[in-house]
C-alpha cells in the first residue's frame, strides 16, 4: 500500500508501523514517530495498523536553538 513518509510517497508491504519502519530502513535509528498527526510511542508501534494514504512522520534529533 502507499503511505506518505516524511512528505514523500512510499510503497510498503508492512501492515503495522513497527514493520514499516524496518522496511523503510529506520530500524536501527533513534527516531520518534507520529501517524496522521498523533504521536505513536515506541511501545505502541507494533500494534498500530497502517492504512492506505496514512501520513507518517519519522523524526530524529537535530540542531536547534
Amino acid at each position, binding site marked *: 500500500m502507499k503511505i506518505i513518509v516524511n512528505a514523500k510517497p512510499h510503497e510498503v508491504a508492512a501492515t503495522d508501523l513497527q514493520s514499516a519502519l524496518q522496511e523503510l530502513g529506520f530500524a*536501527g535509528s*533513534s527516531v520518534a514517530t507520529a501517524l496522521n498527526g498523533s504521536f505513536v*510511542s515506541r511501545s505502541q508501534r507494533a500494534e498500530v495498523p497502517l492504512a492506505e494514504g496514512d501520513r507518517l512522520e519519522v523524526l530524529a534529533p*537535530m540542531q536547534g536553538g
Partner: protein
Amino acid sequence: MHFYGTEIKSRLLLGTAQYPSPAILAEAVQASGTEIITVSLRRETADGSGAGFWGSLQDTGCRILPNTAGCHTVQEAVTTARMARELFGTPWIKLEVIGHSDTLQPDVFGLVEAARILSGEGFQVFPYTTDDLVVGEKLLDAGCEVLMPWGAPIGSGQGLRNPDALRAMRAHFPEVPLIVDAGIGRPSDAAQAMELGMDAVLLNTAVAKAGDPAGMARAMAQAVEAGRLGYKADPMERRDMAVPSTPVLGMAEFA
C-alpha cells in the same frame, strides 16, 4: 538556581544550530561552560544522520532542552513535545508556538493552551514567550515554573528591545526563574539582561554566527557572569548631573 528542582550553575544556555561544523559546535559548547543545550526534531533520513548528531550531543555531558521550534499550532507543538520526550528521555521542553512567520513572535494564546496540556502530562515546560506580565501569569497558572521572555525577535541580534518590560517582569515574578531567550547579539546584551536581574540567558545565533564561535561563547559566558555579579552588587542610581568623584575639600588655590 533551580529549574524544576534541578540545580543549575551556569546561567548561559546555548543553542546548537547554525555552527560552521560539528567540531566548532563542540568547541563552543565547551568554551561557554553551559550545562544546558537546546536541540530540535526534524525529519530523519534512512541513513540515520540524526543518530550521529545525538551521539555527539551526549558527548558534551550537557542536559538536553528539546524545542518545538517551527510549530505554529497547539497540536503541532504538543505532538512534537511528546516525540521529544521519548527521543531525548527528558520531561523538559522549550515550548514554542509561533504566531507569525516574519517576526517569529510567540502565539501566546496557543502557548498557554499547549503549556496547560503538556504540564498536565508531566512535562516541565520552558515557554518561549513575550515580556507580557498577564501572559506570564497565565503560563504560571498553566503549570509553568520557568518563563522565557524574548529580548528581541529570534535570530535578530538586536539586543533587548524593551528592558523596562523585563525589569517589570523581574519585579512582578520575584521567585520565578526568568531566562531571556532570543535576540541577544553581543556580550553587552547578555550582560544587560543579567544586570536587570534575569536568572539566565539562552542564545544561539550570536555564538554560531560569530567569526570565532568558541571565542564568542567564552565572551558570552563572562558577560553573563559579570552581569549577574553586577545585579547582585546593587548598582548605583543614575544621576542627571555630574557629581565629582574626587573630593573637593582640600583643593589647592592657585589663582
